[in-house]
């Protein structure tokens, strides 16, 4: 749950991209986030994220894909949002240390016709406290002339999340899970302290991609998701009117996102510009707007440089309140949370990526074997700003980014 495998639902919508060649794609990403409160001598959260994907053609029309990815996490948790010392008004307590790992395996089968593509896939992911099975399917078709493409995709997740067995306790009596509780223990086992909740996630997306001119293309889309099941962080506790209780969130969440994306080429400058805009709203009351710009510049024939910036801002969920308000006045309804994702916030991302590209030509294959090689290095920073007086996870100030992302990747087509 710490790593939230439910996001697989969003990820498996991507494979509708046609991949005509056999390929091997591997990337290692290092993500680091600074924490507001020190936990021992560790003040950051570090995630190492290896990804490996393989694609193989099965004849003219079919291709098989398989992949593996992992998150290896160590560091400080978010500062907890509860249990201030007696007489203190500071409701943010120190972070604690933890290690965790998430692993995902996936496989898919694609069919590519003259103007159409079909995809079906399956993914299985597991971590200490979360299991996920997801099935997905997608299709896209080009209209005559191949200037307009319609695409649809659907994913269903059959997930399970671990929780402390609180029996029939009321929300304010419920206690959080801890790292000492063993998860997914068979029913009837002596000393079992945990149970698992089912979480069902349905995600669907529809897109239309349109060539506007020889140098401009746009994509419009609609993405909807319904999550049904336990969605609180089982580890998180919130002080509500003097009682430390496990976070309580609604069991159903409906999400809707509308987006528009555009790419514009500048052939004489060997450059291109990308712009993405997304509006989002959900039934928990979170509304957000995302704007993203990318600038691509070729330097010579083999180096491609990209600059990217992204601005994101959201409102809070209707049941989110500052820690002080929960502690002093209790919750206004049945739900209470210390999740920063449900607080009002703004994120700004900026960074660059450099790719070395080598493509087979009349002189022969790249390194005598490949049709294409793409070696890339990416470095980006995220500056996060909480828009509430008492941020759920404290406040990291200063000019340095709150989060950094560095990745190194190699794509080989043959």
């Amino acid at each position, binding site marked *: 749950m710490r790593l939230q495998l439910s*996001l697989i639902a*969003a990820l498996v919508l*991507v494979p509708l991209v046609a991949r*005509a060649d056999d390929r091997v794609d591997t990337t290692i990403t290092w993500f680091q986030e600074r924490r507001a409160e020190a936990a021992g001598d560790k003040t950051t959260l570090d995630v190492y994220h290896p990804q490996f994907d393989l694609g193989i053609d099965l004849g003219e029309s079919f291709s098989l894909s398989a992949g593996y990815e992992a998150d290896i996490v160590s560091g400080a948790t978010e500062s907890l949002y509860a249990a201030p010392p007696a007489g203190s008004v500071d409701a943010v307590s120190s972070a604690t240390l933890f290690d965790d790992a998430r692993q995902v395996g996936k496989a898919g089968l694609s069919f590519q016709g003259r103007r159409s593509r079909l995809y079906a896939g399956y993914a299985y992911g597991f971590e200490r406290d979360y299991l996920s099975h997801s099935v997905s399917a997608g299709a896209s078709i080009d209209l005559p002339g191949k*200037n307009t493409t319609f695409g649809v995709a659907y994913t269903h997740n059959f997930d399970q999340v671990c929780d402390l067995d609180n029996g029939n306790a009321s929300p304010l009596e419920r206690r959080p899970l801890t790292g000492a509780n063993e998860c997914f223990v068979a029913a009837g086992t002596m000393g079992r302290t945990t149970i698992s909740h089912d979480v069902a996630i349905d995600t669907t997306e529809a897109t239309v991609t349109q060539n506007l001119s020889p140098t401009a293309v746009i994509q419009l889309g609609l993405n909807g998701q319904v999550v049904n099941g336990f969605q609180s962080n089982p580890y998180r506790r919130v002080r509500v009117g003097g009682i430390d209780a496990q976070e309580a969130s609604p069991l159903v969440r409906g999400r*809707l996102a*509308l987006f*528009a994306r555009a790419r514009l080429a500048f052939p004489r400058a060997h450059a*291109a510009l990308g712009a993405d805009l997304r509006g989002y709203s959900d039934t928990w009351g979170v509304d957000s707007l995302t704007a993203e710009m990318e600038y691509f510049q070729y330097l010579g024939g083999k180096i491609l440089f990209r600059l990217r910036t992204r601005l994101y801002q959201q409102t809070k969920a209707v049941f989110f309140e500052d820690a002080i308000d929960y502690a002093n006045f209790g919750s206004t309804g049945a739900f209470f949370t210390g999740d920063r994702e449900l607080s009002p916030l703004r994120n700004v991302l900026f960074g660059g990526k450099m790719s070395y590209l080598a493509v087979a030509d009349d002189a022969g294959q790249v390194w005598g074997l490949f049709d294409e090689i793409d070696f890339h290095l990416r470095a980006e920073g995220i500056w996060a700003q909480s828009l509430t007086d008492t941020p759920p996870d404290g406040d990291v100030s200063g000019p340095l980014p709150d989060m950094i992302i560095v990745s190194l990747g190699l794509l080989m087509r043959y």
Partner: protein
Amino acid sequence: MPRSTAVAWSSSSKLFAVALLVAALAGCGRFAVRPNEKEHLADRTMQFDPDGQEAASDDHVLSNREGSSGGKGSGGGGCGCN
């Protein structure tokens, strides 16, 4: 669903339908861009999410730190050259 959210969804859906119609009318004719004019559209810089692993990794990182998820779009482009 709160009434304000329902109204926002309804308005957004109408806007999306209008945008879809305009886009379709604007360019879905079969001669909007001829095959011999698609050189630049086929370039990787004109593809949406040319690096699938980066797109997946971004979704994972950002969705764990923001309340929103989805709506990143699907990959590929409009070159029609697959």
